[in-house]
């Protein structure tokens, strides 16, 4: 460093330094007029790689995937106006699923803010509706502190997205406030101090219950509490079920696992919840896809709810005992005082339900084709699980395939399933898989999507091309929007309005991006195709021709109670 260094530094320098000091490795983004000063400065920073995407929505999703897979804050960088607004869908997705990203948006100069200047948009106004916090520092003096506060807010309590909107003159201006040093750590969110009385009360409820079910929610993953969760359920011999976002919190083939719960959950899980006398909900929020009709939900069960966000406790489901605290902390203290009970009758019921379903589904899985003779997604995922021994990362898009991926894939490793739960955004998989791959470069990452979702962010194949990313893409092409089609089939008199897809040749698109691809039509070709993809050194596309009438069951309708669960397609015919 130059001895005669000016004591003042530019805003761009200050922001770049803030990222370096924070430990950022990647910034996913796209350039433009209002962010040029900053990106120019950032390009000289050796420790941070700029990952240029092809649409800023892709940047928000890639940063989200990086955050989901690494547990660290993901960073996005865009220009003003359309660059910033393009990120909103990804930010909304992160808000719903509690994923921490900081979206740094360039902005027009403070002197022209509010004049409808070129590429100006009130992004802070829009972000305030779908972030934990959004700030536009109006002077370079505030920049370092604002960055710091936003990073803290994003990562404290229930993690989530934040927006830092930096006017161009703030980037270009200079200030002596180069780094922000605080004397003591600012706490933005409080949780409760867990008392031994409360823990004793919880343990008593658990030990005295005859038909308990434990819920493995997203909080188990966010709180890095996988081992504590498994210790807890094994100590008490407690059957458990996953929410969609809790999947891979524990090995899905664990003996105590009931599988996924909720609208498209397993028969075993949903029946158990319906009949339970105690629910221990860990890091989940009783979303409507999980509960169905709230008045009827688990009528005879008492509820213990552990969540880091106090506003989720008693929001949808009235609870009997709650802990507004981190799940890992609670489980660590609870496990020693939980006793193992045999609960033979309870397990007999559970096993009976599991076996009944297994004998129903096994021949279907084996056959591997649906009513129209095309491939079944459930069979494909079963094959993938076998070949990867359930150890790979799977990033799913949204739709029927998502539910089938969640239900039929085995996840043996902690935090290896990624999907858009709360917002249910199509186009999630491809850009999120990019972020997951950057977070886990040595692991295999499968981006599994439908033909609809693939086309929502198809442009990110360009990101894979540019950065030579070894992402294994799987397109489950049934030429329809399957989930809506299922609803139209069941509730709209089979009026298939706008759910048929006129698709191009995906393999030709792959070829244009230098990505080798294969199309698979018969069940007998599945294993060979996966082997081929796994042995290829770089990205691949496997296009499976799937059956448009493969539906996902069981199904509990939004305003139905769990005893109205539709178990199989045959039961409604």
């Amino acid at each position, binding site marked *: 460093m130059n001895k005669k260094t000016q004591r003042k530094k530019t805003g761009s320098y200050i922001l770049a330094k803030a990222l370096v000091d924070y430990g950022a490795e990647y910034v996913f983004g796209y350039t433009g007029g209002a962010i040029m000063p900053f990106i120019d400065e950032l390009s000289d920073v050796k420790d941070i790689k700029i990952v240029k995407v092809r649409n800023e929505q892709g940047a928000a999703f890639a940063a989200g995937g990086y955050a989901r897979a690494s547990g660290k804050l993901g960073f996005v960088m865009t220009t003003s106006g359309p660059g910033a607004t393009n990120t909103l869908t990804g930010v909304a997705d992160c808000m719903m699923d509690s994923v921490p990203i900081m979206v740094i948006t360039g902005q027009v100069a403070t002197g022209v803010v509010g004049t409808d200047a070129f590429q100006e948009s009130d992004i*802070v*106004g829009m972000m*305030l*509706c779908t972030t*934990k916090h959004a700030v536009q520092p109006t002077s370079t003096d505030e920049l370092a502190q604002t960055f710091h506060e936003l990073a803290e807010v994003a990562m404290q309590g229930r993690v989530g997205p934040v927006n830092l909107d930096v006017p161009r003159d703030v980037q270009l201006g200079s200030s002596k406030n180069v780094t922000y040093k605080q004397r003591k750590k600012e706490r*933005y*969110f409080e949780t409760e101090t867990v008392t031994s009385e409360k823990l004793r009360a919880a343990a008593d409820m658990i030990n005295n219950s005859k038909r308990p079910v434990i819920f493995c929610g997203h909080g188990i993953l966010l709180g890095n509490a996988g081992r504590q969760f498994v210790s807890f359920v094994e100590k008490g011999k407690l059957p458990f079920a996953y929410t969609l976002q809790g999947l891979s919190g524990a090995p899905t083939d664990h003996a105590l696992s009931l599988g996924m719960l909720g609208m498209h959950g397993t028969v075993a899980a949903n029946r158990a919840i319906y009949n339970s006398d105690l629910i221990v909900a860990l890091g989940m929020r009783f979303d409507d896809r999980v509960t169905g009709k709230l008045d009827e939900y688990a009528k005879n069960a008492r509820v213990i709810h552990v969540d880091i966000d106090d*506003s989720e406790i008693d*929001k949808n489901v009235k609870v009997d005992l709650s802990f507004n605290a981190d799940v890992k902390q609670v489980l660590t203290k609870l496990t020693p005082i939980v006793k193992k009970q045999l609960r033979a009758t309870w397990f007999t019921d559970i096993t009976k339900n599991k076996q009944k379903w297994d004998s129903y589904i096994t021949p279907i899985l084996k056959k591997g084709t649906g009513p129209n003779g095309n491939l079944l997604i459930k069979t494909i995922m079963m094959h993938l699980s076998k070949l990867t021994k359930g150890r790979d990362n799977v990033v799913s898009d949204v739709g029927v395939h998502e539910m089938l991926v969640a239900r039929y894939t085995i996840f043996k490793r902690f935090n290896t399933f990624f999907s858009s739960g709360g917002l249910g955004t199509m186009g999630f998989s491809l850009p999120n898989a990019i972020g997951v791959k950057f977070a886990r470069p040595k692991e295999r990452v499968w981006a599994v999507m439908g033909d609809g979702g693939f086309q929502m962010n198809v442009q990110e194949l360009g990101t894979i091309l540019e950065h030579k990313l070894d992402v294994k893409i799987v397109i489950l092409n049934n030429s329809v929007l399957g989930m809506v089609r299922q609803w139209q089939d069941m509730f709209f008199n089979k009026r298939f309005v706008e759910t048929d897809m006129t698709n191009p040749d995906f393999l030709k698109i792959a070829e244009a991006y230098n990505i080798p691809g294969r199309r698979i039509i018969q069940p007998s070709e599945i294993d060979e195709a996966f082997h081929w993809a796994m042995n290829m050194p770089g990205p691949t596309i496997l296009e499976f021709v799937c059956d448009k009438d493969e539906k996902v069951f069981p199904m509990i309708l939004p305003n139905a109670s769990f005893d109205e669960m539709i178990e199989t397609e045959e039961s409604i015919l």
Partner: protein
Amino acid sequence: MKNSTLIVFTENKPGVLNKIAILIRKKMYNVESITAFETETSGITRITLNIRHKDAEKIDQIRKQILKIVEVKTVVNVTDKPSVARELALVKVAVGNGKRAEVSELVHIFRGNIVDVSKGTMIVEIVGSTEKIESAIQVLSEFKILEIARTGVTAMER
């Protein structure tokens, strides 16, 4: 249905009222009044919300949601606590010939003030509880009420 009064203490930073307004719109809270001003502590703003809602549980959920806003320090529900609640109303009445004395007498009974007199109108200022304000307005409606401006409730624990 019930009315509850929440006092929100926040940092005095731009955008806080905006965030509360966004929460109100997003969650469809039925806010009957908002008052806001700096407190005795510099940098802290006191926002008083009067909210109409269905039952006891919902107001606690509202309190928790407001508390999630980064700049909010505390939220106190004073509805069922010993507290003092006051609002101010300005009422413009059409006062015909010879009626001024009558209005003046009524205003005196409510311990209010006449703050403006002009040909044919008077502006009355009343301070008090919501019940008192509403009964004063009802009494004054004997005369033609041209305009009412109410501040909404501010409250303080005893």
